[in-house]
């Protein structure tokens, strides 16, 4: 199956290079997941020290992006990979951009947490944001797992979760509008909550993108801007074939 194609190269150096750059991508993913988790914790616990750390550590994510980008270019230039290997490198180059953006969104949430930490917390500790955060964290985690396992089914499931995230985001927005009308003094804080929800919604979109790169990497099929049902019909028969092979 496709998952084993990495180990079929005659040149083991090439193999090691590919494996190493993939591991780097997933390590970067791990750091981004941690950043997202910590930014949400900082918001819920009004922990300004933790929020400050998240803002500071965003530089680490950026450094990793640059390093992986360089490594991918080096492999492209010196090894001239083809077929599945080329798709892996392309998918990695695209995925690091999305991961870096997720890192930026985490930094935004941390900045909002810094601002909100000076105000009194609502009794529910931003329950809606925490709920949305858990959904989105799960999506990022599943998308990266799918990348590690080259698992198309799991990657497609990530895209399905994005709908829940959108619905949740809509409902938070409606709620915030109501709050603002009820009490205009709360507008500043409510706006911040909306921004945090917006950031999380964007993270969900980036996670979906990563899922799409997994499908591209495994099947060579570009499923961006395609409805899920259509994707299923395009991917399924192939998936069955490769199972039989």
């Amino acid at each position, binding site marked *: 199956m496709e998952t084993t194609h990495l180990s079929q190269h005659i040149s083991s150096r090439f193999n090691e290079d590919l*494996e190493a750059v993939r591991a780097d991508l*997933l*390590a970067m993913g791990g750091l981004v997941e941690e950043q997202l988790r910590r930014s949400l914790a900082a918001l819920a616990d009004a922990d300004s020290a933790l929020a400050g750390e998240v803002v500071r550590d965003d530089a680490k994510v950026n450094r990793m992006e640059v390093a992986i980008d360089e490594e991918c270019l080096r492999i492209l230039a010196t090894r001239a990979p083809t077929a599945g290997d080329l798709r892996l490198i392309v998918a990695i180059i695209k995925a690091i951009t999305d991961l870096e953006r997720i890192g930026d969104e985490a930094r935004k949430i941390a900045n909002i947490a810094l601002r909100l930490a000076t105000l009194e917390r609502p009794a529910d500790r931003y329950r809606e944001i925490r709920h949305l955060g858990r959904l989105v964290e799960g999506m990022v985690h599943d998308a990266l797992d799918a990348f*590690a396992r080259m698992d198309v089914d799991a990657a497609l499931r990530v895209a399905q979760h994005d709908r829940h995230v959108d619905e949740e985001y809509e409902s938070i927005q409606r709620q915030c509008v109501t709050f603002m009308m009820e009490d205009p003094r709360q507008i500043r804080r409510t706006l911040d909550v909306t921004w945090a929800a917006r950031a999380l919604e964007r993270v969900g979109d980036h996670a979906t993108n990563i899922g799409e790169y997994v499908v591209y990497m495994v099947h060579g099929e570009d499923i961006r801007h395609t409805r899920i049902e259509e994707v299923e019909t395009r991917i399924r028969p192939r998936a069955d074939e490769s199972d039989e092979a």
Partner: protein
Amino acid sequence: MPRQPFALTLKMWGFMAVRLLITLALGLAVGLITGRVFAGLFVTLLLYTGWQLANLFRLDHWLRHRSLMDPPILGGVWDDVVTQVVRLHRRKRYHKQRLLTVLHELRDSTAALPDGVIVLNRSGEIEWLNRMAAQLLQLRGRSDIGIRIDNLIRQPEFVQYLAGTDFSAPMVLQTGTAPETWLSLHALPYGEGRRMLLVRDVTRQTRLESMRKEFVANASHELRSPLTVISGYLETLATDPALDPQLAPPVAEMRRQADRMAAIIGDLLVLSRLEAKDAQVEGEPIDVAAMLALLRKDVLARPQRPATVSLDIDSADRLLGDDIEIHSAFANLVDNAAKYTPAEGTMTLRWWTDGAGAHFSVADTGPGIPAEAIPRLTERFYRVDAGRSRATGGSGLGLAIVKHVLQRHGGRLEIDSVEGRGSTFTCHFPARRIVPAPVDPTHS
């Protein structure tokens, strides 16, 4: 396994030899009759060899397709050979089966272990994992074999731990959100670059530990307020001129004990604060020489003190650390030495730096510590002997505080002692904590 008796084998070979002789005699006879002796012998031997070759061919054919065919019946020694082969084969199959059974049992028992076990190859790919490991780390079991473990467990601390070389201790990883789970992961290197990863659920222990810490902190905090009230009234009572003179000694004793209790609670709070911040401190450069000079002055100001308190500063280097914590650790050590050194004794404070790092030591000429007590000395409320520290009014927590402070600075405490001669307590700090002394422009 029963072996063919030697006599029987000999008989069989004898039979073969007799058969060869009969064949040769037959050939000779035919040769004599036809008058061509050599041609007769030649033809007979050719036939004999051909027959044997045919047998050899059948044997070879059977060996190649053994699983599909019954053993051939070839007669004579040939049958003997076939029997031996069949027997060898049967024995091999028996041993293979036994090995497989043992292997399966071993694998089943490992799978049933309450701890997770993952076998990693040289490049960190999963080679095998048991059910518990898959469950704890949310892996998929068989289909995750061949995938690098750090691609699936991506927490930066774990990736760092696995990439490092120090596997002497397990690492604790927090996974899952509400309810959180704490897992202890321990990589054990074996063979050539292979590692076995032990995974254990330590959620319960971690919760208990944090509950214990919180309890100690809260209890100490809550005890402090009533104690302050008691101390306040005792102070008023002691200074009250109308107090019955008979009651003066008990009130004084009560005040002393209340002060001691306050000291214990204070130390408990310091300890729990140190425990709460378990990460290493960065801190700022501390002028140790100046700190030690002040500590020496404090000792000299005591009513009961050792005759000589010498200060031996070999380095002007600063120590990178938390000012308050380092002061409390050094003060505890100096205080201990001052208490245990007799009035005519000597106490020496030393501060020096070398290639291994920075060092601070306190040497006294006190009663010393029995060797068996030294390892337990930093335990909370540990007493070398029941009377000793109570008489001097210590809290029993001083050395525990020293140990924690040193841990937070990457250092360690060394205790040397000879009973009846004195003790030396040395704090060792790693070299990266040394900051060269700033050059004073007025002196250069």
